[in-house]
């Protein structure tokens, strides 16, 4: 629950925004389950990050339902979720919990709330087409194992890497990440 000292003007369009954005990718009726949350806490009970951090997934749903946008999106603990789906599997009201976390993170990124390490991961994708690009040490291991030194991925084919670079621009993703 937000503290009294942090009371903000609720964004009463937040729920619909989440449902609208999520419905592009997921069935609308699944995203709408957001409204079915009764704060029972089954989700928190099975959450591996919740055991050791300030992350309480149930609170995210409360904040969204009440329109407390800053609490829902700015709070760094939104990024503690490992997307393990334990809560989504166990939710008694069948709320699409984990995927709604991904939708909320999409909105957070668009608003510029992004971890610096995550920006670095994006840079790797933009440059190499891989979040974990190859290095000299692995190339040597590959050679010893009798595999091609460079795998048959975008690492081997510059024209394939160009396709990926083209797409991250066309989707608007690169611009979204780089705007600051």
């Amino acid at each position, binding site marked *: 629950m937000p503290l009294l000292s942090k009371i903000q003007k609720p964004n009463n369009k937040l729920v619909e925004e989440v449902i609208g954005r999520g419905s*592009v*990718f*997921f*069935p609308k009726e699944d995203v709408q389950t957001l409204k079915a949350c009764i704060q029972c806490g089954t989700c928190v009970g099975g959450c*591996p*990050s919740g055991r*050791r*951090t300030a992350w309480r997934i149930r609170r995210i749903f409360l904040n969204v339902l009440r329109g407390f946008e800053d609490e829902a999106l700015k709070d760094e603990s939104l*990024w*503690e*979720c*490992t*997307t*393990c*789906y*334990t809560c*989504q*599997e166990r939710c008694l009201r069948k709320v699409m919990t984990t*995927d709604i*976390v*991904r*939708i909320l993170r*999409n909105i957070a990124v668009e608003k510029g709330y992004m*971890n610096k*390490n*995550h920006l*670095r*991961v*994006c840079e790797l*994708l933009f440059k190499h*087409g*891989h*979040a*974990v*690009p*190859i290095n000299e040490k*692995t190339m040597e*291991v*590959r050679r010893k*194992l*009798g*595999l091609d030194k460079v*795998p*048959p*991925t*975008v*690492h081997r*084919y510059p*024209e*394939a890497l160009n*396709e*990926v670079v*083209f*797409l*991250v621009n*066309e*989707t*608007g*993703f690169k611009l979204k*990440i780089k705007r600051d």
Partner: protein
Amino acid sequence: MKAYAYFLGCITPNRYPGIEYSTIEVLKNFGVELKPMHGTSCCPAPGVFGSFDLWNWLVLAARNITIAENMGLDITVTCNGCYATLQEANHILQHKRELTEKVNSLLRKINKTYRGTVKVIHVIEILYNAVGLETIKNRVVKPLNNVRVAVHYGCHFLKPSDIRGHGSPEKPTILDELVEVLGAQSVDYKDKLMCCGAGGGVRAGKPETALDITKDKVEAMLDAEADCVVTPCAFCHLQFDRGQVELTAKTKHEYNLPVVFITQLIGLALGITPEKLGLLNNEVSVERLLKKLKT
């Protein structure tokens, strides 16, 4: 010979090529050919790039899938992240026609079209369903008797269960069965089905949290007197292997549980050397496990 398009992803070829080699080699032993997919990128990671921007995630995943479609082969993977992304993207695109059209309007600019003609199958599904436990059992030349294995499924192999289709994620057995058919014993341990800690961008964004989860998992495995942890996921594999190096540095206590990919474990039972399987290239020494194999 049954063939699949092998989607490598990032971590398998770029950090743990032993997984790549042993998977190709073990399946070849069972008459299954894994063909390279030329020009694939990051899948992209479901909880990382999916968390950042679902639209971009979907478009890049669709591009990867088209490469297998052009080969006319179903896709197989050795990373639960790749499995989640490619299978989920396939699922979304097959259920949202208007979205497929939008994706294709971009893909056409690079002369590709998503058609929805291939399935995404995890390599342990091939071993369990297409090859079968009996066939594997009959081919074992070095039974892994006395070896105690802590099985770790990895979240995205099982969940979300409505898309994965492996039944209840609360008590899976497929990986335990694959381990036990080799003569090893799958031991129960605390929080067996808990996450490795790495997913959802947590390894990159919240490394302390990721490592704390890994610590709980590894300690529970050690408490159960496991000789190794066996995974079907390159990312969990990396998290357990590198994670233990990080834990040792942080706590000054040595964490030394060998980390073995399922096809590396099968390779050992088929008589392939640990060196050829790439097991000696792990960060955490597998010596403990190899000693146990000799007894």
